[in-house]
């Protein structure tokens, strides 16, 4: 049996008049998502964007750039594929070149410099990401690798690397040197009977630095040395800044990038 319920009379609440003045205390606004995303972009550039040499040619370049604010790294990567390989080259020698380019060379180039990304609208206002390199041999290659018996003269452009079986010598010096050509870096040694030459390296902030050679500070691009100058990585700050300022990046023109 259901017991009847006596209805309650609710009190009438008078509407309040809100003040036109803002309440005191901190105002919470939607903060920009600063260091919380991963950006991937396909870079298509001309080498002259990065460095202009009085003797070394520039090429069209394509590679991938990942700016990963979550894993805290910048990754420069490309895919290689075999072109023609001299039939007299052993599988072991071919494997040695392939494995060195996939592992030892990118490892050597990685974690030497950082990309400092500054955004005044963020807190903190900057973040430093280690610059790393990754080379893959699977997928659609952007560079064809031809392999000749060593010793031979090795070369590289934006689409082709002509390597030889001796290029793994000296801790993969030649492989590393030639790979940097595929990212637009130029030779800093004299060709032929020349007496002087120079290269103008561009920075993301619009400035440039001119290096005249022969010079006395050997580096990866000037002699058989493994020294890595910061300017060899300035191409990363140029592309990262251009991308992060774009609508598909952070979309904020105040963002700056600098290799440190």
């Amino acid at each position, binding site marked *: 049996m259901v017991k009847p319920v006596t209805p309650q009379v609710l009190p009438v609440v008078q509407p309040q008049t809100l003040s036109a003045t803002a309440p005191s205390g901190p105002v919470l606004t939607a903060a920009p998502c600063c260091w919380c995303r991963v950006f991937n972009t396909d870079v298509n550039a001309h080498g002259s964007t990065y460095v202009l040499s009085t003797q070394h040619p520039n090429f069209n370049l394509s590679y991938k750039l990942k700016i990963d604010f979550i894993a805290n790294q910048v990754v420069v990567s490309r895919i290689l594929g075999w072109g*023609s390989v001299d039939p007299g080259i052993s599988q072991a020698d071919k494997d040695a070149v392939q494995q060195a380019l996939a592992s030892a060379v990118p490892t050597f180039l990685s974690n030497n410099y950082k990309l400092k990304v500054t955004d005044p609208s963020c807190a903190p206002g900057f973040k430093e990401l280690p610059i790393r390199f990754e080379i893959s041999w699977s997928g659609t290659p952007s560079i064809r690798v031809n392999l000749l018996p060593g010793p031979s003269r090795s070369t590289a452009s934006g689409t082709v690397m002509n390597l030889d079986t001796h290029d793994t010598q000296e801790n993969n010096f030649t492989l590393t040197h030639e790979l940097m050509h595929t990212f637009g870096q130029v030779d800093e040694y004299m060709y032929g009977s020349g007496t002087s030459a120079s290269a103008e390296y561009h920075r993301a902030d619009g400035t440039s630095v001119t290096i005249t050679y022969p010079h006395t500070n050997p580096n990866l691009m000037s002699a058989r040395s493994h020294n890595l100058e910061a300017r060899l990585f300035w191409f990363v700050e140029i592309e990262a800044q251009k991308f992060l300022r774009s609508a598909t990046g952070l979309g904020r023109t105040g963002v700056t990038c600098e290799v440190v």
Partner: protein
Amino acid sequence: MRGRLTAIALLTATFACVYQVSANEEERDNMTLTVALEAPMTAPLMAITPDSPDYNPVKYNVRLSFSNPTSMPKTFPGLAIVRSTVREYRNTRSGNVQSFTIGEPPSLKPELITLAPGKSWSYGIGLEYPAELLQSDRIPIILQLCASWSRSQLDSRIYGDVAFDWAKDFRVCQQIEVVP
């Protein structure tokens, strides 16, 4: 040899005008290394065009070889020589010339090669794409490729105090027919 034509130019025979050959027999023996240019007789244009899908620098390669025909071992700065060897392409029809001087990064220390009697050592210098010649003339075209080196290219800071037997100027040439 895969159809290659090997042109051998004895330095003392071909370039006696470049430097004087001593009458002293012992010194003459010290000078004698044989330099040869091994190049394909013909090369399809697309096979030497780097941007072409048919580009094949392996099949159409050029090698520079050094042989020791003497009865004594010979030591020479082979890598320093080949890294700064200049390649010059001449259109035999027009006479136009295009040169390539791009080498490889120099070493910071002496690099000497010792050739036993009768032995050879070679280095691939590659067959370049002389665009100025090939884009301005009709194919087929006969190119004369010359590889030359001057001893002045040796870095005296590195090789000044190093003892070796041979470092002489040379210029060796070979003809290549570029076909469609």
